[in-house]
């Protein structure tokens, strides 16, 4: 479905979508409370894709869950469609905040979670951030604030695929020790294989890990996983003018599993 969406729009952040497929699958299949027929249901869990460029994977799941018709996927980036290269609040049912500029989603999540805490609401907030995005200062402002308010309603999932646009995270601006960083900012931290559905599900079922702290799950992932063509391939971080030949190659290289 992701490849068909890319085929329709002839563009997209391919690697960024493939690395979060299992994270979104587990969230929407097993963890999040939502009502696709009533996307603003007050008791829903809020899920924000802060790394908005991974939106194709989100769109496919939202369509599958019935937030909007599957036919919208085939209008990806078209002038008459609702699905753009980054997800928009108010335009796409199920999207909780417009993201695309990095470093905003976690602060939105802090606002949502703080509101839930102030009003003693039971819903939870999940924010998916990229590893490259963790270079943004606002991420760490938000982290300090979440810890200060002891927002146990908040869970951050870091898509740690170790690659960003120019090269590897280690080359461009290293994040290590990432687990210790989040812990020192006041989060309860777990690490998982971000492609292992069972491990993701079991870990997400245990949040909050500490009743006085926000949680973070460092998801070790592989950028572009899912096709041998895109896996770990920087050229597929973002592609415009995707040709029919490339689409055929993507379909041919889809992993069998």
């Amino acid at each position, binding site marked *: 479905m992701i490849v068909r969406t890319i085929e329709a729009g002839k563009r997209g952040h391919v690697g960024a979508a493939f690395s979060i497929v299992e994270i979104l699958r587990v969230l929407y299949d097993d963890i999040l409370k939502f009502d696709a027929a009533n996307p603003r249901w007050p008791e829903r869990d809020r899920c924000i894709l802060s790394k908005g460029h991974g939106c194709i994977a989100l769109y496919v799941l939202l369509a599958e869950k019935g937030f909007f018709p599957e036919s919208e996927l085939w209008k990806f980036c078209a002038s008459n469609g609702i699905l753009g290269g980054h997800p928009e*609040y*108010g335009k796409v049912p199920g999207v909780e*905040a*417009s993201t695309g*500029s990095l*470093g*905003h989603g976690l*602060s*939105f*999540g*802090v*606002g*949502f979670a*703080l*509101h*839930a805490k*102030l*009003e003693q609401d039971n819903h939870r907030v999940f924010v998916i951030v990229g590893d490259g995005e963790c270079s943004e*200062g*606002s991420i760490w*402002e*938000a982290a*300090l*604030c979440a810890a*200060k308010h002891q927002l146990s309603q908040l869970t951050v999932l870091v898509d740690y695929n170790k690659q960003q646009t120019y090269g590897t995270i280690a080359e461009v601006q290293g994040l290590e020790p990432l687990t210790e960083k989040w812990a020192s900012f006041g989060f309860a931290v777990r690490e998982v294989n971000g492609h292992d559905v069972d491990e993701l599900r079991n870990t997400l079922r245990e949040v909050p890990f500490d009743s006085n702290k926000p949680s973070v799950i460092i998801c070790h992932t592989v950028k572009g996983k899912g096709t041998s063509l895109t896996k770990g391939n920087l050229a597929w971080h973002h592609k415009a003018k995707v040709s029919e030949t490339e689409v055929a190659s993507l379909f041919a290289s889809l992993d069998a599993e």
Partner: protein
Amino acid sequence: MRKTSLDMVYELAKRDPRVVFIGSDLGPDTLKQLKAEFPRQFLMEGVSEANIVTMAAGLAMEGKIPYINTIATFLTRRCFEQIVLDLGLHNTKVRLIASGGGVVYAPLGPTHLAIDDIAILRAVPNMTILAPADADEMRRLMLQTLEVNGPVYVRLGKGGDPIVSRADLPCEIGKAILMREGKGALIVTTGICLQVALAAADELEKQGISARVLHVHTLKPLDSAAIYENAARVPIVVTIEEHTIVGGLGSAVAEIIAEASFNPPKRFRRIGIPDVFPDQYGSQASLMARYDITAEHLAGVIKELRSKTA
């Protein structure tokens, strides 16, 4: 003006539980009454404007009406993208209460001078921009902020400014106020420069020249109709503001005058801070004098333009 504005936040918070105050590391006694009586409506966060603005957007999307207060420069430049996207694009009911608009913090230097806040915020769709002339008018405008859809920026003056606004005139967000009738020239002003404009009009009257004074407390949405209609009645239009002449009130009025294609054309001039970083300390008054934002200069410009008209 800051104290009055925070008193107003307390009043608004008392009457509407959706109101939440958010400070960015302000003085220890800030709104302590609010904190004591309504602790769930009081937040004091760290020096982190980017996070605060987006967090406030998140709170607003859940139904709160956050009022954020800190120094104007930090509440605009530092977190501009958060304002554009998370307040503007999301059209969230967040209020930015900006201390020290203009050159109030003259002794603290250019890092603290908010001389471009109106220009940059004018470019943000959905934004409302208010610049009251004094504490009384600020109170009247603040009361209306509860109802405005979308984000609101309130530019505060120094405090203790002389009261020149009038309770007997209607004060409504989005509507300019004609403070004085006159046929010789139109002075368009905003914020505390209203007192400068009125003083200039007094001086001109002594010399037999009558000047209209239009006070634009709402810079966005701009009352273009009032500016057009008042400009149509006079040969000369001069704007005066405690702000850079690049992109502020003067620019906005120039756009209206240019597009109106008046025949004969209006004689027009902008008075404000030129395209420079202020290079002196001193006081608000001394910096305004340095850049000719004075009643004497304003009156002189109008007399000069009269001679060109004739």
